[in-house]
């Protein structure tokens, strides 16, 4: 049995413990903020479906873990102060350099305007993230081993805790403030400034270094305030176009460009709409409005920049309610189009699911102009729960319209499956579902009859249209193609739900077919991550592997469930993520209060606690109609649930760091690395494969199973008991 006197800590010859904590805090803050910004930029540059997001998150965590493992190669050498100062500065500037490189290289490495396949997105993000992530991981190990000469592993937990506190602070600052007021490059510049200040703090007794750092600060920030670095670098993403404005928001970036008199609206670098696009503004409106030309009250979700609201007003509507969660889209539509100017148009800046909960109006037509269900977040607009809430606000013969994949002359199998899933989901609430094969495939749903002869309807209604009319649409052809699609639909296709999301999986498969690919890259990456961890697996690190996996999966499930039950509120998501970081910090730092004896038994119990938590969560989804939970309760309960799991995981890490024998750098690097690898596996697999296959409840049960397994391993393999230290 080993014991360590309280507070025994030989000082580092150069760096006091407080400075170590400061650097760890700054590292955590920088990393949390950088992760959000960099991932948003990567998703913007490539494509933002769950596959790409999962691969990038996995790359982030795996590289950081790898960096931590590299840190163990340093054999108990106290890092000189200067090395840490340089590292802090490099960590501070790398994010801005990475974003600049990404924007510049995107159009050079890949053909302009092309969608990049998953493999290319994987290696590109791997290469771009490598410098920052390797250094960040390396720094963690260096810091953890820097504080003591006696290899007290309690320092590892302290550094982990300080880093988590930093992440917590970064999360709060970004999600509640920075995301609303600064653009990406400004955020990264602010991070660099913070890191310079940290380096300055480290140089308290080095006057020359302080002067140099202050000089550098001025030299960097004076030109940075004069040049709009964001626009200057973003220009590379829009060759041939002039950027009129680029505004960031919590929902991403909205860039407006101009080219030969045409305005283009890009959301996260994906083209939303252009002016002079007649089909783009008419199709989402007239297919539905022509069915109910006397509609008085219309609800439109997103799509203002295409001019669609003006098309609605051609009918004698009394009121058009336009709902959009992204304030930048509303802003851009107001500034660059006349779409929202009419007095009959009411604009609501809110997530439509939240809006519908408190709405009292009844609508005659509902037009959903949301993107395809390419992510779990977008999937929410195609679920039975959502359609149910929309139906509740529709009049008895009202029509709902939504647009899907571009229509072609042949419907592939995966397109057919996606259409089948959505049609079956609509059929739960609507008696009639009609497919209109326009330039996109539109689904119309109503309890009253629907007519595919759009040209005839429009002519009858006498509404002036440029494209949606009998001149451009052949009713016979529309009818025939609609019947062809209907004949191929699968009545047994799974229904899409908030907790059993399949539509976004179908859309992922369809996307993979662009490249004649499948999920093999996910399999290879998962295998590589497992292979990386196997070398370091023992009864202690196995627990962290499963714990990291559990944390990643459960955090994602909480985010998904919250959005499904409450709605999309960016600040709330930011709070959930930040609470998670805070819980990790509490668990890591408050180990002594929570667990008196450090032993494999208690380590096992913590893991079983995680398993019990996951089982409870899973049972909740399966056993109860969670949609009945009052929204305000959701608002309160979810942060608490998040905090709880995070405390357990943080606690687990803290105990592990004491159980694991060996040198401090071994402890730090191995445990941090394995924890991250587990998280990477979770990030990679949870939305790409697990949730679509087994639903949210199923993922909870898988997590429970894994943590029970590793908990049993810990329980059966040792009776070693430590006194609390």
């Amino acid at each position, binding site marked *: 049995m080993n014991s360590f006197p309280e507070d025994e800590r030989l000082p580092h010859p150069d760096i006091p413990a407080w400075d170590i904590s400061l650097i760890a805090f700054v590292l955590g803050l920088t990393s949390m903020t950088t992760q959000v910004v960099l991932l948003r930029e990567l998703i913007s540059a490539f494509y933002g479906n769950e596959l790409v997001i999962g691969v990038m998150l996995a790359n982030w965590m795996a590289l950081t873990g790898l960096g931590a493992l590299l840190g163990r190669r340093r054999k108990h050498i106290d890092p000189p102060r200067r090395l840490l100062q340089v590292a802090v500065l490099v960590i501070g500037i790398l994010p801005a350099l990475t974003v600049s490189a990404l924007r510049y290289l995107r159009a050079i490495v890949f053909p302009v305007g092309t969608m990049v396949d998953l493999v290319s997105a994987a290696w590109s993000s791997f290469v771009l993230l490598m410098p920052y992530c390797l250094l960040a991981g390396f720094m963690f190990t260096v810091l953890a081993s820097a504080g003591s000469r006696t290899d007290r592993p309690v320092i590892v937990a302290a550094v982990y805790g300080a880093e988590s506190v930093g992440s917590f602070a970064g999360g709060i600052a970004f999600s509640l403030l920075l995301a609303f007021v600064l653009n990406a490059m400004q955020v990264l510049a602010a991070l660099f400034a913070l890191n310079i200040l940290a380096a300055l703090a480290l140089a308290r007794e080095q006057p020359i270094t302080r002067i140099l750092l202050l000089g550098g600060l001025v030299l960097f920030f004076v030109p940075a305030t004069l040049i709009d670095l964001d626009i200057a670098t973003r220009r590379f993403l829009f060759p041939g176009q002039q950027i009129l404005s680029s505004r960031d928001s919590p929902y991403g970036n909205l860039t407006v460009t101009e080219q030969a008199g045409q305005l283009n609206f890009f959301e996260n670098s994906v083209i939303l709409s252009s002016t002079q696009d007649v089909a783009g503004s008419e199709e989402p409106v007239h297919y539905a409005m022509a069915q109910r030309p006397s509609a008085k009250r219309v609800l439109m979700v997103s799509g203002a920049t295409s001019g669609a609201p003006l098309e609605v007003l051609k009918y004698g509507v009394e009121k058009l309610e336009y709902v959009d969660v992204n304030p930048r889209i509303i802003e851009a539509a107001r500034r660059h189009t006349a779409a929202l100017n009419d007095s009959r148009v009411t604009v609501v800046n809110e997530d439509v699911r939240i809006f519908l909960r408190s709405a009292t109006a009844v609508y005659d037509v509902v037009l959903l102009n949301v993107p395809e269900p390419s992510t779990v977040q977008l999937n929410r607009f195609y679920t039975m729960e959502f359609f149910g809430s929309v139906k509740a606000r529709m009049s008895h013969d009202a029509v709902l319209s939504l647009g899907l994949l571009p229509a072609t*002359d042949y419907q592939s199998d995966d397109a057919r499956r996606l259409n089948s899933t959505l049609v079956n989901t609509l059929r739960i609430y609507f008696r009639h579902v009609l497919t209109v094969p326009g330039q996109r495939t539109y689904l119309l749903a109503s309890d009253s009859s629907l007519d595919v002869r759009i040209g005839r309807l429009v002519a009858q209604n006498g509404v002036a249209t440029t494209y949606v009319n009998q001149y451009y649409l052949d009713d016979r052809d529309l009818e025939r193609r609609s019947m062809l699609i209907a004949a191929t639909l699968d009545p047994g296709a799974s229904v899409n739900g908030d907790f059993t999301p399949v539509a976004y999986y179908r859309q992922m498969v369809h996307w993979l077919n662009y490249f004649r690919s499948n*999920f093999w890259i996910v399999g290879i990456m998962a295998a590589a991550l497992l292979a990386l961890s196997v070398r370091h697996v*023992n009864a202690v690190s196995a627990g962290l592997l499963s714990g990291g996996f559990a944390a990643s999966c459960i955090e994602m499930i909480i985010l998904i469930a919250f959005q499904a039950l409450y709605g999309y509120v960016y600040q709330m998501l930011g709070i959930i993520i930040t609470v998670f970081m805070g819980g990790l910090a509490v668990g890591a730092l408050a180990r002594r209060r929570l667990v008196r004896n450090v032993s494999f038994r208690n380590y096992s119990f913590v893991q079983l606690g995680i398993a019990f938590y996951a089982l409870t969560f899973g049972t909740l989804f399966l056993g109860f109609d969670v949609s009945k939970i009052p929204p305000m309760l959701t608002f309160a309960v979810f942060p608490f649930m998040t905090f709880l799991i995070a405390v357990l995981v943080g606690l687990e890490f803290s105990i592990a760091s004491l159980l694991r024998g060996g040198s401090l750098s071994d402890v730090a690097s191995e445990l941090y690395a394995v924890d991250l690898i587990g998280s990477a596996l979770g990030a990679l697999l949870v939305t790409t494969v697990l949730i679509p296959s087994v639903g949210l409840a199923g993922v909870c049960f898988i997590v429970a199973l894994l943590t029970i397994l590793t908990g049993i391993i810990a329980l059966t393999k040792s009776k070693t008991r430590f006194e609390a230290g």
Partner: protein
Amino acid sequence: MEPGLITKREFMRRCLMCSGGMALSASGLTAFALPGRGEGLSIQGSDDLWKWSKEALFYRKTDAGLECLKCPNGCILQSGESGICRNRINHDGKLFSIAYGNPCAVHIDPIEKKPFFHFLPTTRAFSIAVAGCTFSCLNCQNWEISQFSPLETKNYDLMPDQVVAECLRYGSESIAFTYSEPTTFYEYALDIATLARKKKIRNVWKSNGYIHEEPLRKLCKVLDAANIDLKSFDENVYHKLTRGHLDPVLKSLQILKEEGVWLEITNLLIPTWTDNLDTVKRMCDWLVAHGLRECPMHFSRFTPLYKLNQLPLTPVATLDKAREIATAAGMQYVYVGNVPGHFAENTYCHSCHKMIIERRGYQILQKNLKGNACGFCGMKIPGVWS
């Protein structure tokens, strides 16, 4: 071994046991299978070809395998291998087409949709396609059939005589070989066109023009009209965009003209790719210099599709400028496509410049033609008007 530790082997064994359970859902694992190459798809384990196959025309035996001579891709195929187009296969020492009688897309379209503006206006074309293509265009509208093999698509069973019968049943004046790349189902198209001719049905060809001279000249004997996609006049851009080459396409344009096939040309203006107006001018100068000034030119507006979906639509002003350049270069009939309501959907006499056909979509609102001559100045208007 220290208590509290397990061996790596033991851990891996336990992990494998766990993942073995997941592996039992075998269908899920196929999602992780390494994908086969799109090119060179082999039909494995089959002694007989399927019903929808016919010995190919235009190939020869070489020491390295069978060389397909249909298009400039020049695939040389070993036994069991199929070519870039996915429709030719080396089977038992002979080259077979597996795209015969199995169209995956069958529709009735207005002829103007192809687009043909000077060929049997307002008539309807019985339009068919078999999966496959000689190119891999980044912006393909019908990628779900062009980038796949007939083995992978859901197909109809329609032999050539049935195609002709269906066309007559629907009252279509022409059969259009379109949607994918008809060169890839050459034998099928040729047989259909031959039968159709006997029934006085016209045959129209919507193609990338990537075909060797001999097969093209043979096809021209039964072809009435062709619309060729001239995707760019810059070889580098052409290759990056399509993986094909420009010169064979230019040659095809000349051959079609020589053979008396009515020819219309489509040029899609893609922002930053093919919207360089200097290149457009060079293209038009070449067309005029090679006797193609009478061929209607359709400048088409790009919409984001398939892999090229992070670009905006072509600005209308760019299309207008291209039209001006083409007209100034001497092209007599220049249209703007995919811009509903644009004045350049109409036909203007190249002599007196008056509007002789007012179009709106696929309908003609007014027509000032006397036979095949301008109703105002009497100038002969090139085209097939009846």
